[in-house]
């Protein structure tokens, strides 16, 4: 190898050799890379090809002239390196290549790749260095870009808060740092190469085998159907967590794989469950309220409709929700402007004892509207309470008080009235006796007076004296019975609780009704067939016998009146007394005219009567109801079919309600 510098005088070669040398020279001169030879140890270029103009910005001539230029174009950060390299070079140590930066004459920084061959003399002393210098700036930049890219993606991959991994149809191929963390692993080898279902409990909450389900989902994803699903994963220590998984197909290394994103949704799930639990709890509370509770927003749209509201309006919650209150709420109740007022004034609105007629039944309700304003969600809650029952009880109480005061008055008056009544009745009885021809004293007295008892009797009959006496007796009896009936209202204070035999109370009552002379004029109770079905061994019941008899009496009298007034053919009462658990059930059934549903529902209301004015007070059954339900803690029901008859059912607790 013997390159010649331009300035060197080379002996003329033979013609063949000259041709060959020209070809080489041309090759060197046209090369894009610098080809050079530098003598050592002086560091002078023996030859440098013209590519130096391009790569360094200096022509070969410039470099031949001032060889030190080369040390100036070396990038400052590489200078130290080259000082060291130079020393090594002089010792004959040289690397196969250098890669370093230079500053082009224009100031542009370039990456250079330089290959070296050391030329030594026979004593192994370095005499020259030959080599080739390439501009690798573009390649270096591409490499840098690639490295940066890789780093960027790696950072993205590893710093993600979700698990990212790549799986083929059964194994983890690659995963990010979060995957380690989430699955509780320390080493990538704990995951890579393992099956995804190793990080799942054997079964998913839907009872499917995790392995089968995972394989199916992975298959589908790899076939190109993206999957998104809820999954229960387990950590290496076996604890489970809720996750949301999405699988997508990717194409990598000549095959289709699945890329997975797994997100731990434990806290979201817990929050969801807590929210659900709270919602259920609130729903339960709102639904178990005995009041109608309706929520509306500020525009009057319904957002709450509890079970009692469903019952009250017969409108289902699903049908009410989201609708305008104005469109759906029963028209007879005017609450719209109250709702408006409550919201506008931020003050609760209340209406009490509002009558509400549905069908032909009137009920009474309390309406309260509370304005709502929490975190800007304006609206109102409407609460409606059906107070019909309360009013009824209240009225019964009032009635009962009235009756008690009547009773107290009657008791006080009874003595005062009974004495003169006794005087009237006793005297009239003596008068009647003293007109009788059966008494010897009368006969004697008549004779003394110059007449006979027969004449006096005859006279009395002629002048209607006896019928007048009978009229006085009758009137006296009537007055006595009025006083007696009034006293029935006052029994309470003297009532004593005792164990009474219900069948015998019933028998006594029936006997009483049968002999009730005031009713005898209208009908004869004995016309009515009374069928008694008493179970044997009926336990005595702790009760107030008078009150229970009063109740039986009331039902029997009412029933009898209805039966007779409606000329019921073959009138009958069927009376059953039977044992029930801890109770005695008494049924009094008649085959009278019965009643329709409206009457049946109101039959226990005070002053409700179907009888013509003056014939009934309308108190009998409500007092009876009060006696059974309040005084004896029993139940009192009525069943009836119009035209077929009526059945009253009384249940009395054996141990009484006291």
């Amino acid at each position, binding site marked *: 190898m013997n390159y010649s510098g331009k300035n060197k005088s080379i002996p003329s070669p033979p013609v063949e050799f000259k041709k060959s040398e020209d070809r080489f020279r041309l090759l060197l001169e046209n090369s894009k890379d610098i080809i050079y030879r530098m003598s050592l140890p002086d560091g002078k270029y023996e030859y440098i090809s013209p590519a130096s103009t391009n790569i360094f910005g200096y022509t070969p001539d410039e470099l031949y002239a001032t060889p030190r230029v080369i040390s100036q174009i070396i990038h400052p950060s590489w200078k130290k390196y080259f000082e060291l390299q130079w020393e090594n070079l002089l010792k004959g140590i040289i690397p196969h290549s250098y890669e370093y930066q230079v500053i082009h004459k224009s100031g542009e920084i370039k990456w250079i790749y330089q290959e070296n061959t050391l030329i030594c003399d026979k004593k192994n002393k370095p005499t020259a260095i030959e080599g080739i210098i390439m501009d690798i700036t573009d390649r270096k930049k591409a490499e840098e870009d690639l490295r940066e890219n890789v780093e960027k993606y790696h950072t993205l991959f590893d710093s993600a808060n979700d698990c990212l991994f790549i799986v083929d149809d059964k194994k983890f191929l690659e995963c990010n740092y979060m995957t380690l963390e989430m699955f509780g692993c320390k080493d990538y080898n704990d995951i890579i190469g393992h099956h995804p279902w190793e990080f799942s409990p054997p079964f998913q909450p839907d009872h499917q085998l995790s392995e089968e389900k995972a394989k199916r989902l992975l298959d589908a994803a790899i076939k190109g159907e993206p999957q998104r699903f809820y999954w229960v994963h387990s950590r290496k220590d076996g604890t489970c967590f809720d996750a949301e998984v999405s699988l997508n197909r990717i194409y990598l290394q000549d095959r289709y794989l699945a890329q997975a994103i797994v997100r731990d949704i434990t806290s979201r799930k817990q929050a969801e469950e807590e929210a659900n639990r709270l919602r259920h709890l609130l729903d339960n509370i709102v639904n178990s309220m005995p009041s109608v509770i309706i929520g509306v927003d500020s525009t009057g749209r319904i957002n709450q409709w509890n079970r009692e509201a469903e019952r009250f309006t017969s409108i289902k919650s699903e049908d009410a929700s989201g609708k305008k209150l104005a469109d759906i709420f029963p028209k007879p109740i005017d609450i719209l402007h109250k709702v408006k007022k409550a919201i506008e004034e931020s003050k609760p609105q209340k209406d009490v004892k509002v009558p509400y007629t549905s069908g032909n039944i009137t009920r009474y309700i309390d309406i309260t509207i509370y304005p709502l304003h929490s975190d800007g969600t304006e609206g109102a809650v409407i609460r409606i309470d059906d107070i019909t029952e309360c009013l009824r009880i209240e009225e019964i109480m009032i009635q009962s008080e009235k009756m008690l005061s009547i009773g107290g008055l009657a008791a006080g008056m009874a003595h005062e009235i*009974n004495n003169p*009544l*006794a*005087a009237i*009745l*006793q005297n009239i009885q*003596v008068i009647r*006796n003293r007109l009788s021809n059966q008494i010897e004293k009368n006969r004697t007295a008549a004779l003394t007076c110059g007449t006979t008892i027969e004449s006096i009797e005859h006279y009395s009959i002629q002048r209607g004296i006896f019928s007048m006496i009978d009229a006085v007796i009758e009137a006296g009896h009537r007055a006595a019975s009025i006083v007696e009936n009034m006293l029935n209202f006052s029994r309470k204070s003297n009532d004593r609780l005792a164990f009474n035999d219900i069948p015998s109370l019933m028998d006594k009552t029936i006997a009483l009704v049968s002999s009730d002379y005031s009713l005898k004029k209208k009908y004869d109770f004995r016309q009515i067939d009374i069928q008694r079905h008493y179970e044997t061994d009926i336990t005595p019941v702790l009760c107030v016998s008078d009150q229970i008899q009063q109740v039986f009496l009331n039902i029997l009298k009412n029933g009898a009146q209805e039966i007779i007034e409606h000329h019921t053919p073959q009138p009958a009462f069927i009376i059953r007394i039977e044992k029930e658990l801890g109770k005695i059930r008494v049924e009094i059934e008649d085959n009278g005219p019965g009643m329709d549903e409206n009457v049946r529902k109101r039959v226990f209301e005070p002053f409700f009567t179907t009888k013509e004015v003056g014939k009934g007070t309308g108190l009998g059954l409500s007092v009876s109801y009060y006696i059974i339900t309040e005084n004896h803690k029993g139940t009192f029901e009525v069943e009836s079919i119009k035209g077929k008859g009526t059945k009253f059912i009384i249940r009395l607790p054996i141990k009484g309600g006291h």
Partner: protein
Amino acid sequence: MSEKEESPVQKFPHVLIVDDDKGVSRSLAAFLEDRDFEVKTAENAEIALHLMKDFRFHAAVIDLRLPGMSGDMIILKAHVLFPHIRFLVYTGSSAFQLSEELQQIGMTSEHVFIKPLSDLSIIADTLFNLADHYESI
């Protein structure tokens, strides 16, 4: 009846009626007299106790609500002084119930009559029976 006629004591019981209402006491007396009872009337405790001392009564018919000493007190007092007298209560108070003391001296609901009675015979009959009972002791 014919058997009773043989015994004058049984036939004509001696009865005291104590009642402040003369319309009641006199008519009851008249009724009993017509049945051959010996009858005296008193309108208060003082007179009643005087009469009991002066006459030997088989029985007494006592109203409860009286001016001064009440009927049941008269009965208890008279029972101590005149233990042979049997008592009936005849009252306008339908709520009347025999006190324990009255029950202890042998009175039962059979001896209580509530005014007004539609027929006085029931008192007359009871008085007859009491007199029988008394005589048999």
